[in-house]
Each structure stands twice: as C-alpha cells, then as structure tokens.
C-alpha cells in the first residue's frame, strides 16, 4: 500500500511523509532487524524512522 502511495505521490509530484511498519527485534537500534532501503543504504525503522519522506524508500526489495 505504501509502495503504491509512494508511486502515486511521485507521479503527482506530491510531498509528504509516510509511517512504516517492520518487524522489530530490539526496538532500540541494535539488532538491525527492521532495516529498509533508503537511497543506497539501509536505515532502521525503529531508530531512523518510523516516519520517512515520501519518495525516499526503495520498496522493490520486498519479497
């Protein structure tokens, strides 16, 4: 859903933010379990998010 929203936002040139969900192990940034891809690096939903700018998250790596 967020991937579709992000695609729509890009198409319509909308700015905004989105709140992500991910399975978290520790919830405090140590286990690296909740990583998502942003640009060329992985960021942690628990510590670096959960709110990210629309258009910055790479959802293509989801299975």
């Amino acid at each position, binding site marked *: 859903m967020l991937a579709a929203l992000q695609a729509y936002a890009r198409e319509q040139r909308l700015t905004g933010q989105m709140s992500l969900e*991910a*399975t*978290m*192990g*520790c*919830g*405090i*940034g*140590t*286990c*690296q*379990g*909740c*990583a*998502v*891809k942003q640009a060329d*690096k*992985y960021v942690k939903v628990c510590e670096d998010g959960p709110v990210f700018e629309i258009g910055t998250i790479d959802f293509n*790596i*989801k*299975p």
Partner: protein
Amino acid sequence: MKKSFAPDLTVRLGDLVLQNPVITASGTFGYGEEYREFMNLDRIGGLVTKAITLQPRQGNAPPRLVETAAGVLNAIGLANVGVEAFLSQKMPFLQKLKPAVIVNVAGSTIDEYVRVIERLETAAGIAALELNISCPNVREGGMSFGADPQAAHTVVKAARAATRRHLMVKLTPNVTDIAAIARSVVAAGADSLSVINTVQGMAIDAVSRRPRLKNVFGGLSGPAIKPLALACVYKVARAVRVPVVGGGGIMTGEDAVEFMIAGARAVSVGTVNFINPRAALDIAAGIAAFCRKEKIVQVADIVGTLHV
C-alpha cells in the same frame, strides 16, 4: 547457614574470570552502549559485541526478521561498522566497562579473520575474542567454516597464531556431529567454546508462496531451540576439556542453571534481550535465587552435575 546468604556467582573460563555466569550474546546487544540507559552494564557477567568484520557491512536485504512459534528467525547478515570504526567509535565506551568484553570476529576468508584479529590485538580493554564460524546468514565464511571439522581446524589454527588473547569459538548446531567439530577446534587451540549459534530455518507465507525472509533461510533462536541447545552443550562438554559457554533460548535463571548442569561454565543470553533489555541482570538474579533456594554456595559447583 544464614537464612538469606549471598551465593558466589563467580565463574572461570580458563584465565577469564566473570563476576556472574551471564554473558550477552553477539548480535543481540549491539556494542553495549545502546543498553546503558536501561541498566548498570558493570553488573553483567560479560558482553559479546556484534560480529566485527574487516570492512563495514550493510547486511542482507530486508525483511530480515520474522517471529515464529516460541522464537525468532533472523537473517541480518553481519551488519556492522567494520573493525576500524569499531576501534575508534565503539571501543572507547567498552574499555571503561568492568565486565569481560568479548569481541565477536567474523570473516569470509581465513585471511580476513586474521586481519581483523591483528587489528584488534593492540587495543586495550578486550578480554577475549569469540570466533564466529557459525553464522548461517552469509554466503561466504560463517557456517561454511564451522560445519566441517577440517575447515574449522584450519581457521581456528590461523586465529590462534594471530592472537595471545583468550580465544573462544562459537559453534553451529547445523552439523551431524557437533562433538567432532568441538574436538577439532580445541585441537587447533581454542581456549573455550560457545555453544550454540542459531539453528537454520525458514518461514513461508502460504498465500503469496514467498519466503518470509528475503534471504530465504534464517537463524532460529529463542525458547524454541532450548532443548536442542541443551543437547549440544551436553555433548560438547563431555567431548572436550575446555570451558563451554552454553546458550540457546535462555529466558530465566532456572534455564541458565539447566545449561550449567549440562556442563556449561557460563551462559549466553540473546533473544531474551529483545523482550527485556535488562534480562542479563534479571537472569543473574534468578541464578542467585536458585542457589539460595537449593543451598548452593558457589554456582560453579553445579557445572556438569547432571545425574544420569
């Protein structure tokens, strides 16, 4: 005997003395500093860092984590800052800690293991190295070294030659005969063994028919693996003379005591840190409570006392 006495929780792993038997497992306790707000870190028995590699590693593509029955599957992929950043950014905090700081070392080649160890060798404040030859989530290195007695011997021998420090080797349960691996690693110069790393597993989403982990396979941990881990510890402790650190699904002090009875001199706690960041202290307190209840003066006395 006084009604409430303070049992002696000190344990010895060869030259390594721990104020209590509870060590936080690699990959579940970051670089230690993340937990300072939750607890007095000086009271834990020992701390094992995330696996450190020569170069920084971003880790595997997500999803990396999935909860399963009584456990968790992970495929993090040894994400870490690399040895240089570890020494300059993480080690200064660890150096000030009172508990034994054990640095987990990983590599994809023998040369990489040796180069990480050589780089760590001159740093102050490291009590021991834990050689990771058992990670199930990396394509090269990791478990491929730990699943074969000859390959395990070769990498441990190279590591032994590169360090004067206490060398602990962490074994994988994903083998036919863990005792054979243990004997081979001890013959190559290991000072102690850490038993066990995670158990390879996978999870599937039936509707999408896709694996729940992008890496397809992951390492299973948590209470689901405790019986399996106990059997491994018992087998290894009977096969070698060096001290064994036992772990796999420990949640309580009594769980820890069971591992010690099976032959572990100390225990490592991992997944429980994700439920309770203070778990290492609570489990040590649980061990003390057990000793008081059972009138055990020194916890070390219960090691390997299984009645069969």
